[in-house]
């Protein structure tokens, strides 16, 4: 029986010729990641168990991105705990205010993850690096502590769903719409305990930023990981960034999948997820006109340069509607700088947007844009659970950056075409 791409990476890191779905394996890790919320808990577990040494200070990344720049004293204490631990153990990759970006945009950008690698992160959206052809998955703090100590962890080999992509996306339709559509089709537990393996001729037409967005939200379908094949676009992205050895794994022809989902990219429309589950999808056209109070453009899902450019195209020379708060958060310092250099920041400020330093902030209801009872936001983030961005009676609607920008201009859910036609 052949293996899926995910199974091959797991087998290679477990030192096995072959694995099959359901096997429990112990696999070596190329990188262990944590943030300011999860790392302090991992440190507590690490120290309470009398562990004194990390397996490799160059294979651990601590990214202080959630509540930073620190929103209160308690958050400052968390960051201090993480920072002190990083210094004590000479952790090479500590990203703090000034260099920090949102972890899942930052690590690929900095070349810290690459094709064929095995990565765990104490953050559920660690699955993002599947866009590069890596196996990466979110874990908890105890798993992070174990990974930091031993450089390995246990994994149950997942079955896979094959997502066969064909065609090409229309203007103003992006990777976000692909993944929202897929979650709408299979549900928030449609890929529970499984891999989502994206394949087909449609892959080559997707930009790397689109692939990052798609892999990022694999967790929102319950998946263990989402993964893309390594192609010319992947190599173009990693060249000059990633210092490790590129290993491009391919699924075997006779690999087994629990099911196949076909998506015709050319038929997709701009899509939103209504409260309170990412699977509650509608096309923008179906819900256009729904009033909103706030727009958030950013996050590990959609805070990359192409996302900011897409929002900019809509907002340039226009104004955020009266009464609407539009918060734009470039995901990394490099993206921020690019936005400054390309004049995007100036145009967004002229349009009436607030542009922030990188932070996860409002996505998880941390800070920088919390909602009051009865308020509704359109956000390019990844979750719209009850109370996710603030009060339990507030609402979050997930959308792509062009739709979010168009909605900011109109003051209600709106399609980019509608705004561009004005």
């Amino acid at each position, binding site marked *: 029986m052949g293996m899926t791409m995910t199974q091959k990476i797991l087998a290679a890191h477990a030192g096995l010729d072959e694995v099959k779905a359901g096997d429990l394996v112990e696999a070596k890790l190329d990188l262990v990641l944590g943030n300011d919320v999860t790392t302090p*808990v991992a440190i507590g577990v690490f120290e309470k168990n009398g*562990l004194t040494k990390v397996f490799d200070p160059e294979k651990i990344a601590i990214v202080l991105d959630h509540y930073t720049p620190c929103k209160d004293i308690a958050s400052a204490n968390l960051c201090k705990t993480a920072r002190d631990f990083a210094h004590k153990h000479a952790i090479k990759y500590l990203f703090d205010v000034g260099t920090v970006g949102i972890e899942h945009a930052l690590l690929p950008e900095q070349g810290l993850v690459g094709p064929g690698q095995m990565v765990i992160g104490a953050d*559920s959206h660690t699955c993002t690096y599947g866009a590069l052809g890596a196996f990466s998955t*979110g874990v908890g703090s*105890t798993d992070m502590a174990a990974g930091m100590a031993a450089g390995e962890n246990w994994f149950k080999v997942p079955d896979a769903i094959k997502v066969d992509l064909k065609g090409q996306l229309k203007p103003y339709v992006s990777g976000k719409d692909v993944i929202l559509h897929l979650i709408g089709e299979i549900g928030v537990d449609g890929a529970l305990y499984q891999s989502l393996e994206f394949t087909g001729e449609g892959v080559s037409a997707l930009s790397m930023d689109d692939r990052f967005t798609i892999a990022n939200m694999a967790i929102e379908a319950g998946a263990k990981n989402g993964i893309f094949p390594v192609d010319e676009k992947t190599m173009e992205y990693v060249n000059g960034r990633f210092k490790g050895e590129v290993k491009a794994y391919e699924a075997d022809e006779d690999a087994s999948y629990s099911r196949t989902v076909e998506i015709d990219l050319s038929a997709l429309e701009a899509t939103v997820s209504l409260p309170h589950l990412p699977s509650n999808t509608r096309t923008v056209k179906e819900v256009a006109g729904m009033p909103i109070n706030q727009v958030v453009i950013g996050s590990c899902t959609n805070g990359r340069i192409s996302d900011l450019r897409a929002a900019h195209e809509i907002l340039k020379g226009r104004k955020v509607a009266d009464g609407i708060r539009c918060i734009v958060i470039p995901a990394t310092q490099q993206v921020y700088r690019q936005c400054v250099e390309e004049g995007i920041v100036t145009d967004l400020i002229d349009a009436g947007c607030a542009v922030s330093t990188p932070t996860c902030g409002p996505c998880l209801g941390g800070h920088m844009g919390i909602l009051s009872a009865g308020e509704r936001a359109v956000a390019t983030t990844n979750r719209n659970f009850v109370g996710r961005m603030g009060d339990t009676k507030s609402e979050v609607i997930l959308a792509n950056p062009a739709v979010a920008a168009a909605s900011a201009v109109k003051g209600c859910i709106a399609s980019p075409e509608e705004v561009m036609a004005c």
Partner: protein
Amino acid sequence: MLNGKTWKYCDNVDTDVIIPARYLNDPDPAALASHCMEDIDDTFAGNVQAGDIMVGGWNFGCGSSREHAPISIQASGISCVIAASFARIFYRNALNIGFPILECPEAALEIQQGDEVSVDLETGVIEDKTTGKTYQANPQPPFIQAMIDAGGLLKYIKGKVEA
């Protein structure tokens, strides 16, 4: 043998409602427990009794990787969670901190709020004493059971790195 009164919730109970992010800046288990479930049930934290049992539907614990979620439920006094299925990160986290969870769709569907339930973790037998019905939960794979018996993931890992 665990015995307790049940707290029953719906499908897709997510980690944001188990413990909202606004409370994650204080990871002390007792502090987390005082806000556990408050966004979907503000009666829980004040009324849960030590030993009570939580029952969820499909995909319990979906969303974030925050280990604060099972920590808050455990620290509130809940002795185990029975659900139709668990989101995978929550599942790992619960096992890793030594918090018992059982997958049993039939029990998760039929047991009602406030029922008196007993759970035998060794056999996976769940008994609803209010209705008199018994259920068999899926057993843990042997590797996982061995890890639990070793005292959790970190004890297991410590044994390896110090070997």
